[in-house]
């Protein structure tokens, strides 16, 4: 496949064959080497062939092979002629990240961090097959699907300020649970307020670097050593089932002929099935917002109990990593509404966008990029250039470079725990095998991913945080 170097960090697959637009990959030459090892480029090209795609098929710096669309894939489609695709969002709808800041400093909590983790483990169920502690009725679940984190706050889990500091205010207004299957509801009922397993985690972190002092202060971080909490999880089995259901419904209705990959199945944005998927996806997004809202509330409770106070534990922001949205973007000089798919990518709006909370609007949207277990995570800020470069999107994490099986062959969970402890990081997990699978050696270097984002201008570095305590499902 022809790959043209545009700059040292920008690569392009020129329009060829059935491609309607070119594909652009943001990567350093090091990151590009790992991208070339799997099907990422082929998948970016397949996306460029879909009806109504606008401008480019993009791959973010942490891109890697997905199913249908690549992970780290961003694509926007025309509302009239374009499509919406469950495979362009992913199975874990609104897998995302929430970052809470505190006024604690490292020395305040370092001797208590194990106790904090043990208590958080008691409050927040984690691991496969672990049900939530909230007993829900179907009626309440539908209310949560409709109102997202708003439901949680109204029921005493958190504050109105949390909602302000959440993408979409914690609620996508187009959500409608009417076309969500019984099976998806069944999977959602026992799992609200659970962390799950796999790559999901909860970390107590400390600020290790501040790159932009003014912006960091606006977002609530003022000095190195300051303690923060990061929550990384999604819509659990409910979201996975919505994706599975709509891939199947679209296949049954539209067939799979002519698709290079069955997971590229899609429906016109404004068709009945397209609308039903979109509204169901919004409902799953809301479930995930409510999920992270409950978990954040319990973390505050634990800090209050163990430390005597949660000491200013305010939410910096909460972002979606897997989502499709109708957004206004400038295309060929004209502002137009398009259906933007971000699959393993973070929205990265620059200053002035009305979607950004008022307190941040003049500066840009906070962007949260978690690293792999036990490595650094980043707080960035969205940029004006990202509009032109990537429909206002950037990376979402480190991205794997090694399969879970290879990781199991190379690493042992207990050994990783000991190594992390030497670095001052306390680890609690339900499974040593799970720890080995998520070893940081199996991931790309998040520092490199973020550097590319910063240098290209997709999202700029504000602060870097490192864990002092990790909870893994």
């Amino acid at each position, binding site marked *: 496949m022809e790959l043209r170097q545009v700059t040292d960090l920008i690569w392009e697959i020129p329009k060829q064959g059935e491609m309607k637009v070119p594909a652009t990959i943001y990567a350093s030459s090091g990151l590009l080497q790992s991208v070339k090892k799997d099907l990422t480029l082929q998948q970016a090209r397949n996306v460029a062939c879909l009806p109504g795609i606008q401008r480019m098929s993009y791959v973010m710096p942490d891109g890697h092979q997905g199913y*249908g669309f690549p992970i780290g894939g961003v694509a926007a489609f025309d509302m009239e002629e374009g499509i919406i695709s469950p495979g362009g969002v992913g199975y874990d709808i609104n897998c995302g990240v929430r970052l809470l800041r505190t006024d604690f400093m490292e020395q305040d909590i370092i001797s208590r961090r194990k106790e904090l983790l043990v208590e958080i483990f008691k409050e927040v169920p984690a691991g496969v097959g672990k049900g939530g502690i909230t007993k829900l009725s179907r009626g309440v679940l539908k209310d949560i699907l409709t109102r997202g984190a708003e439901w949680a706050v109204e029921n005493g889990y958190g504050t109105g300020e949390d909602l302000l500091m959440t993408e979409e205010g914690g609620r996508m207004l187009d959500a409608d649970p009417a076309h969500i299957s019984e099976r998806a509801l069944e999977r959602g009922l026992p799992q609200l307020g659970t962390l799950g397993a796999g790559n999901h985690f909860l970390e107590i972190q400390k600020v290790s670097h501040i790159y932009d002092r003014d912006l960091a202060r606006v977002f609530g971080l003022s000095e190195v050593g300051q303690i923060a909490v990061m929550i990384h999880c999604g819509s659990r089995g409910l979201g996975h089932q919505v994706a599975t259901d709509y891939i199947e419904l679209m296949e049954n209705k539209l067939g799979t002929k002519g698709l290079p990959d069955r997971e590229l199945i899609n429906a016109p944005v404004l068709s009945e099935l397209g609308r039903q998927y979109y509204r169901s996806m919004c409902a799953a997004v809301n479930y995930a917002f409510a999920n992270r809202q409950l978990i954040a509330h319990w973390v505050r409770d634990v800090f209050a109990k163990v430390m005597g106070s949660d000491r200013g534990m305010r939410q910096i922001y909460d972002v979606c990593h897997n989502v499709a949205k109708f957004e206004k973007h400038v295309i060929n000089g004209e502002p137009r509404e398009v259906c933007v798919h971000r699959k393993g990518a973070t929205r990265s709006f620059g200053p002035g966008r009305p979607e950004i909370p008022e307190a941040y609007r003049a500066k840009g949207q906070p962007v949260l990029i978690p690293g792999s277990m036990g490595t650094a995570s980043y707080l960035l800020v969205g940029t004006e250039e990202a509009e032109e470069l990537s429909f206002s999107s950037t990376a979402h994490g480190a991205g794997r470079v090694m399969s879970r099986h290879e990781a199991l062959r190379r690493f042992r969970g207990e050994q990783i725990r000991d190594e992390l402890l030497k670095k001052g990081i306390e680890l609690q997990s339900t499974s040593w095998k799970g720890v080995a699978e998520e070893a940081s050696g199996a991931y790309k270097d998040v520092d490199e991913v973020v550097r590319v984002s910063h240098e290209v201008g997709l999202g700029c570095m504000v602060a870097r945080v490192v864990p002092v305590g990790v909870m893994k499902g």
Partner: protein
Amino acid sequence: MSEKFRFLEHTADAKFQAYGRTLEEAFANAALATVSLMWEPDEVEKTLAHEVSVQGRDLEQLLARFLSEAIYLVETRSFLLASVNELTIERAGEGFQLRAVFQGDDRPGRYSLSGHVKAVTYNEMRIDQGCPVTVQVVVDV
């Protein structure tokens, strides 16, 4: 058949091939491969049974829906699959009908669990009815 399934390299997700003398046996082994990402099926006691019945418009959809049953049962019934019995696949109208009996245990606290299979995907899915019958699946983890 000595080897029931084998995992292949896949960067982000889990990819396996399951084998059988028959399509039915390969499907059953694919279910064991799927749950082996979360627990060891051989270690799970057979204390109860679930009857499974799924339809598919083609064999790929039948396989995806069948494997999804095992994920659904652990999430909604805390049921851990130990073995697949009496699996039959028949033509039904334009598509296929599968029936099977899952045996296993609904006391997850007794076993060592890890990871999570989120969904069965069609990505790189292959059903090769050669000798042995081989099915290849990528699951989202």
